[in-house]
């Protein structure tokens, strides 16, 4: 007597589970794939052991200071960017921007920028940057700047970074900070963007 009913129930529950799983996949699916695609689509990458430096760039300037940005990924162990240098700068520091109430403060980051194991650290406006000071020449849009990055474990790598006015037209920061799960990626805006 009960068996046909339970069978119906189980069948329905199985469907429910399947639908839920599909919904979950549809939600979180984009992350890894887009990352790779973008990497193939003309992103600039430099590799050093387990580390990959992605899309470095240096900001144009009209005086003797500027900043360099990039994303540093590790597919293996954790590491730390401990220092950097550039032939165009007399002094280079690793800086963080801290905002307390109404004031933003830029200062040297003690110990450098940690790169998490199997993770990444993003150097971007409002957060971390490589501060280039006492510039011997002003980097102009379209030029390339040579940078040497020194990591605690992986050692040194020389990279070249294009000079740009800004990150580009895609402001990829989502300031609504929902945890870390589906962080950045150029696809963030379509839903939230009421840009008219």
């Amino acid at each position, binding site marked *: 007597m009960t068996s046909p*009913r339970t069978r*119906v129930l189980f069948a329905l529950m199985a469907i429910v589970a399947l639908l839920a799983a599909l919904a979950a996949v549809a939600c979180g699916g984009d992350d890894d794939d887009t990352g790779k695609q973008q990497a193939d689509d003309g992103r600039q990458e430099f590799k050093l052991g387990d580390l990959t430096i992605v899309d470095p760039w240096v900001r144009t300037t009209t005086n003797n200071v500027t900043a360099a940005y990039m994303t540093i990924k590790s597919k293996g162990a954790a590491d730390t960017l401990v220092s950097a240098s550039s032939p165009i700068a007399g002094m280079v520091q690793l800086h963080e921007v801290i905002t307390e109430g*109404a004031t933003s*403060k830029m200062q040297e980051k003690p110990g450098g920028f940690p790169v998490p194991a199997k993770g990444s650290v993003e150097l971007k406006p*409002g957060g971390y940057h490589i501060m280039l000071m006492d510039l011997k020449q002003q980097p102009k849009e379209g030029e390339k700047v040579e940078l040497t990055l020194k990591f605690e474990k992986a050692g040194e790598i020389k990279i070249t970074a294009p000079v740009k006015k800004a990150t580009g037209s895609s402001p990829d920061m989502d300031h609504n900070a929902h945890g870390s799960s589906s962080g950045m990626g150029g696809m963030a805006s379509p839903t*939230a963007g009421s840009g008219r």
Partner: protein
Amino acid sequence: MPRFSWHTLALALAAVALVPAAVACSGDDGDDTSPGGAQYMGAIVTPPIEKPDAILMDENGKPFDLRKETEGYVTLLYVGYTHCPDICPTHLYEISEALKKLDPDVRKQIKVVFATADPERDTPEQLKQYLDTFDPDFIGLTGTRDLMDKFQVALGLQPATRTDLGGGNYAVNHAAYVMAFTKDNYAYTVYPSGMGQKEWLNDLPLLVKKGFRKE
């Protein structure tokens, strides 16, 4: 009867199981936390900031009466410094890009003012050269240290302090956000780091056409 109840139960379970999935999916676009239906994306400041009545020096070395010169305009005011490699150029770039995309009729009702927190280094020439890389219409303001400090206090800010970086270099700790004064000379919204073109393109037409009145 019993069969019907099994079905009901199963359907209820199905509904319950699907709801969280649906919520999880739509989570990102549900941020309708705008005040009183005005749909502003900027951060609301209470009480609003009054536009200071100050006469400073502009990027051409001429006296600039802030109240008089910006009367009747939406005025975006930012206190920064040209040796700022990070936040200042990001704000200025985002504003300049948004302005290019705005309806020209809205655009012409907006003035952008960059006041320096580093008057020792930011001469009018330095300001002009810097601002011209973003938009030649941007206004740069400087003055004596005392004047610039008072100006910041009038805006509800701490006078900027320095962080020594060594070798004669220093960073200036300065305002974290851009203030948007509406035509009534008050700023009801500010735009911290991280807000960019999307927020400006949304808010600037509202600021110009509607202003920000208490409802």
